[in-house]
């Protein structure tokens, strides 16, 4: 009897949390299935279809859409999008790291207030904040007005509708996504380790590169993913602040659905694009675990 009861009890303990785990996860799983898995399956299916003259998907198998994805036009656009996203990521690390580090080193009371400052922009709609940048950067805008008033320039600088404006918009939009994860790592970092590095004769540079960076690396990689991946697909900023002059891959995909009546091609672009994200994620992840 006893011999039977013990494994049963063990089983119960082992099973209960598992069952509870699933129950707790159920909303998330349902959400993922409904809004990620099912749409991805539909997208994948559409990408092999054709369309009629109104843009309705016609279910006849073709590989033509994938053939077009690898047309040099679209590869160049993809390359440019990756370039912009990469520069954005680097700028975000360069600007975000010192900020996150500084916040993490403050006493708790000040820290919370500073973190609040980082998050306040999220209280306003993203589009409104982008329009605010237009008001700052336009020819007769705040920045040009100020520079002219101070006498630094005589004629307004063309700032808006340039690649620089796009970068400003991207860095501005994604900076908090870099600061917060780095802050998370930096806050946990034990100061004693930095002190130990100094005691062992490491200068500030060496302590930074060999102790601080590796210890905050998980935050940096998380931030890089959070910035790089959405920045590739961003299209609103390139339209509004870049003047829709040079297409990004996000614009191209959007156009297939809402302009060119070519959902299957848009789907094919989306599928390839998603696979690249997965690949990028796997690469960064592998690197991260290797350095650890």
């Amino acid at each position, binding site marked *: 009897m006893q011999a039977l009861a013990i494994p049963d009890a063990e089983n119960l303990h082992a099973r209960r949390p598992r069952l509870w785990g699933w129950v707790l996860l159920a909303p998330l799983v349902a959400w993922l299935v409904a809004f990620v898995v099912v749409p991805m399956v539909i997208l994948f299916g559409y990408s092999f279809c054709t369309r009629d003259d109104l843009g309705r998907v016609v279910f006849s198998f073709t590989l033509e859409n994938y053939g077009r994805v690898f047309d040099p*036009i679209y590869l160049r656009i993809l390359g440019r999008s990756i370039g912009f996203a990469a520069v954005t990521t680097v700028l975000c690390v360069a600007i975000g790291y010192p900020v996150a580090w500084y916040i993490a080193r403050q006493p708790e009371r000040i820290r919370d207030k500073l973190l609040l400052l980082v998050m306040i922009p999220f209280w306003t709609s993203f589009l409104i904040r982008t329009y605010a940048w237009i008001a700052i950067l336009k020819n007769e805008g705040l920045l040009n007005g100020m520079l002219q008033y101070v006498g630094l320039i005589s004629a307004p600088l063309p700032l808006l509708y340039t690649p620089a404006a796009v970068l400003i918009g991207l860095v501005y939009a994604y900076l908090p996504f870099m600061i917060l994860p780095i802050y998370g790592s930096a806050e946990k970092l034990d100061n004693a380790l930095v002190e130990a590095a100094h005691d062992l004769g490491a200068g500030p540079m060496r302590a930074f590169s060999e102790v601080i960076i590796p210890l905050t690396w998980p935050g940096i990689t998380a931030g890089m993913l959070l910035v790089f991946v959405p920045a590739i697909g961003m299209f609103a900023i390139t339209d509004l602040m870049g003047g829709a*002059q040079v297409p990004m891959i996000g614009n191209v995909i959007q156009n297939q659905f809402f302009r060119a*009546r070519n959902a299957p091609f848009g789907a094919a672009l989306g599928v390839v694009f998603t696979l690249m994200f997965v690949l990028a994620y796997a690469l960064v992840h592998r690197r991260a675990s290797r350095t650890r």
Partner: protein
Amino acid sequence: MSTRIVRSLVGAFLALTFSLAASAASKELNLFAWSEYVPQSVLDGFTKSTGIKVNYETFASGEEMLAKLLAGGTAYDLIQPPDYIAEALIKNKLLVPLDYKKLPRFKNLLPAFLKMPHDPEQKYTIPYMASTVGIVVNSERVKEPVTGIKDLFSPKYKGRIVTVDDGRELVTAALYVLGYPLNDINAKNLKEARPLLAQWIKLIKLFDSDSPKTALLNGDVDLGYVWGGEAALLWNENKKFIYVLPKEGAHQFVDVLAVPKGAKNSDAAHAFIDYLLRPEVSKIISDEFPYTNPNGEARKLLSPEQLANPASYPKDTRKLDTFRHLGDSGAMIDELITDLKNAK
């Protein structure tokens, strides 16, 4: 016992919800229309006079409208497509013929806007507002006369031009310059248009379909190739913004009202169309959105200044053409423009 009570309760509840839903349906109109095109006061006025609530859902381009309509998420009762999309919908039997007995004010419309190529029998559509695509010049900054598309896309205006972000409009401009009819979109003509467009796209500072007037007002650009309605608003703001219909020819567009197949409340849709055709209601629309009003009775109520707006009522209607449904060559245009912007 208790299950029976529950069952009857559920039954009663269901019956109640169904009857509520049914009565709500006849009191609601699902309108799918352009953003910034139907004044709120007009919607309120309609609800006040008929008791029908209007759900105004908006789109920002004809193609967006088409995609959402075909996706079939909502049963729209009334849609507001541009002419060439209405034509495509008619050809694919996706519109319901109108019941003219319910539209006594149809007679207010000017004959010039009836039986147009998109709906030659005037069976499915009622014109809402019309306009053209033309050139806006900030005459304080540009002193030379700009009379046509060729003048506009001149190298001296590099970085000073805004155009609508619409491949077909740009291709149309190129076809006009080449002397081809604007609906002759085929591989050969696009190939001829390509070098011209490549040159123009390098000159353009900003592509914006939603609000091209903003960059002109802000002084970021001095010339535009924009919707007539936007140009009319600019002229109202400041008379320095001159509107010119290109001498090579201009695209005229008509936005129409139509009842899509699957509409739940066709009666309300007809009532709304007829309400919009009232001269005093149509005037409110013109006051807020100065497009070309096709309603002859409403035009009589407009002020001389409104009628003098060169972008709303161009004096010289030299060569106006409307878009026709193209089939799937829209993808060719998209690829061409994407390629050219890419090469920038």
